[in-house]
């Protein structure tokens, strides 16, 4: 392009226009065409008077008290819909629509809450249905109703404590393997790194499956499965771009950009995102009254997450020991998001948010696994021992995961 050729003049002024004008030309023509379309309505013959069918999702229900039931509703369709009546167990019931601008009509893509004063019975399923203006019914079953705890300082504190035990402490304990790992021979170290990659790969699969499950309850408007795929690919590319930037800096001779510390930070971020999603699951289960966070469950989580510690520090093993505050930082980035996730999950859980967080975690982890492979692989490829260690990571995570059925 930089070569001077006879065409240079032409490409400087494409179609004889300034370059900026040439860039805008297609957009301007598109605008003109759109305007003409609206004005002349050339497809009027295709308008048979039919409209799209109403598409409404009740994503979930919350039960703030024994006398109230709240249905979370999203209008997925291209037309506004009106919630004219509400049925609870085949009976018309009082209700109020909140968050739809004061009336019961939801614009396309709008979400709202339908609050029903209903004295439900704990454990007795509720069959609810929204009756739209044309008589369409949108059903939702509230399985085994239980009070949602709601927002209290006590709940936030509980979730913070749970987060510390489930996220921060296990990761910190796992990081105490650092001196031991540092004393290892290269081949053993590679095995540890491969084991970490196995741990991460398991987390990716686990979170991916969960994200797709959750995507089923995402209102159609947000295209749950596509949201998950975009979340995974998006976060993978984002972390990859950070990594590529780091390599560029290293190639340019930046001392700090070389070495395992960068990879360690990437691992910490990946695991942190995963733990955010884990916290989300804990928080939302808690908010929906679906879980009792007993000692056994917390112990299970600790066992499960302790393997995340060595995954974070393994990339540092063949370099100098970083400063203590680096360790603290890595531990917090990897572990503390459980607390944040727990809060978000308890306060503002929606399947859409949950699926998105899970997907973002998957993408970040996949990139880190790829990064770790780069550290382990030699010219001869990945050694048999490392592959078995990877498998070991998967197996250990599967086994410890059995303890944390939420």
């Amino acid at each position: 392009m930089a070569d001077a050729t006879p065409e240079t003049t032409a490409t400087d002024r494409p179609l004889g226009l300034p370059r900026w004008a040439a860039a805008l030309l297609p957009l301007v023509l598109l605008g003109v065409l759109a305007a003409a379309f609206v004005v002349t309505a050339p497809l009027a013959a295709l308008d048979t008077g039919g409209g799209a069918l109403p598409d409404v999702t009740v994503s979930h229900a919350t039960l703030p008290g024994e006398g109230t039931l709240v249905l979370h509703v999203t209008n997925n369709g291209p037309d506004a819909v009106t919630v004219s009546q509400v049925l609870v167990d085949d009976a018309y019931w009082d209700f109020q629509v909140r968050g739809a601008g004061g009336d019961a009509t939801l614009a396309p893509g709008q979400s709202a809450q339908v609050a029903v004063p209903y004295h439900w019975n704990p454990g007795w399923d509720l069959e609810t249905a929204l009756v739209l203006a044309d008589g369409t019914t949108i059903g939702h079953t509230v399985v085994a109703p239980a009070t949602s705890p709601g927002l209290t300082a006590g709940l936030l504190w509980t979730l913070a404590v749970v987060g510390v035990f489930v996220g921060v402490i296990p990761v910190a304990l796992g990081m105490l393997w650092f001196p031991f790992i540092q004393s290892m021979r290269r081949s053993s170290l590679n095995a540890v790194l491969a084991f970490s990659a196995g741990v991460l790969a398991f987390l990716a699969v686990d979170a991916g499956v969960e994200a797709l499950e959750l995507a089923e309850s995402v209102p159609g408007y947000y295209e749950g499965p596509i949201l998950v795929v975009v979340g995974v690919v998006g976060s993978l590319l984002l972390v990859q771009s950070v990594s590529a930037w780091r390599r560029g800096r290293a190639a340019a001779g930046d001392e700090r950009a070389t070495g395992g510390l960068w990879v360690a930070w990437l691992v910490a971020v990946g695991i942190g995102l995963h733990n955010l999603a884990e916290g989300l699951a804990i928080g939302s289960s808690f908010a929906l009254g679906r879980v009792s966070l007993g000692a056994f469950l917390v112990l299970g989580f600790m066992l499960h997450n302790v393997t995340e510690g060595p995954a974070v520090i393994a990339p540092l093993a063949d370099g100098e020991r970083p400063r203590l505050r680096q360790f603290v930082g890595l531990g917090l980035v990897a572990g503390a998001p459980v607390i944040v996730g727990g809060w978000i999950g308890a306060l503002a859980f929606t399947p859409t948010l949950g699926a998105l967080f899970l997907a973002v975690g998957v993408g970040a982890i996949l990139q880190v696994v790829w990064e770790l492979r780069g550290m382990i692989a030699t010219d001869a490829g990945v050694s048999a021992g490392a592959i078995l260690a990877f498998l070991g990571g998967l197996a250990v995570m599967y086994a410890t995961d059995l303890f944390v059925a939420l």
Partner: protein
Amino acid sequence: MTSHDYGAAGRLTAALESRLVSGLGGDAGVTRRAVLGAVGVAGGAGLAGVGGGTEAQYAGGDHEEEDHGTHGNFGAVGEYADRNFDPHAYLRQFNTGRDGQSTVEQRVYEEDGRTVREFDLVAVDTTIAIAPGVEFEAWAYNGQVPGPTLRAVEGDLVRVNFLNAGRHAHTIHPHLRNLNPAMDGVPTNGPGVLDQGESFTYEWIAQPAGVHFYHCHSLPLKEHIHRGLYGALIVDPDPERVRENPRAYTASEGPMTDEFREELVARARSRNHEYDDGDADELVMVMNGFDTNFDGDNEVYAVNTRAFAYGVGDTDGKGDWAAGETKRPIQVDGQRPVRVYLVNAIEFDPINSFHTHSQFFDYYDHGTTLTPTHRTVDTVMQCQAQRGIIELDYSDHEPGLYMFHAHQSEFAELGWMSFFEVV
């Protein structure tokens, strides 16, 4: 609305209402409906305050929840906006040929020594309101569901000029003792089904005396009936025929004394709209339902189409209530007998029922007898197309609300829930 004093409840509601209305003053954008709705909300809030109910907490919200602190209230929310059909007017609208609804062309004349009552009925496709804010695409005789109530006297000729203006083929089939198969309104007889734009004049002898039913008999039958093509057809007993053949009008097998004969004649006179002795408040109630989501099950049940139309506008569930503009009890004079012409036009459910609170009644199955077929009952059931006459006496009841409803609880909670307000 009504000037009747509802006692303490009425005063409470009126006070709340006037405070709100005056508070909103000259705001032209505020409709009476909105104000009434606000009264309900204010009432609920007041109640929660009195009860000291717990402040409900919302996950992730800034909502100020007024937890009613009670079980909440069932019933349809809001008032009916569509005023094309008034179920309260429908109750007492009888088309006799001589007079009736302005929407029904009708005339009465003598022909070959017989009284002829002639009506024009048109089947149309229309949209009706079946619950506040819920519309149903109906097929309807003269645009209303149930169709116009036709009334004749035993032995009259009923002549119906039927035009089908709907998109589907329709008929009118009468539940009468009809001697000419061509007039039966079924696809196999006479003109069969009438396509769009076609018309036919049906002629039926009004017999036997009773409360009867007419409906479209096109196929698929379930759909043609449930879409709204039905109505009540009342045949008043002729006192002279009763005097000649009293045995045909009794449900009992006892001896026919002169005294009993005269009593039967008197009852026939009281049922016959052409005599003045009838002092009963006569009400037509057609029990029906609507499947709005095509699952073969009704989402709305009602008498006379509109869910909860004879219910109350608002209640706190603590004994206070207020009449709504379109949802309000049927007011009856306690000193007049009440006669209900009850017809079951339900589809999808095999039976329907009618149950009165604090009241027992005599029931005349199909209305074909002048002595009751059921004495002193508070619940009757009817299969599809069954009908009967219910005679109620509230003369020794205190004024106030008396509930009546289907005693299939599901039907009641889906709209077939009503009240008499005895005044």
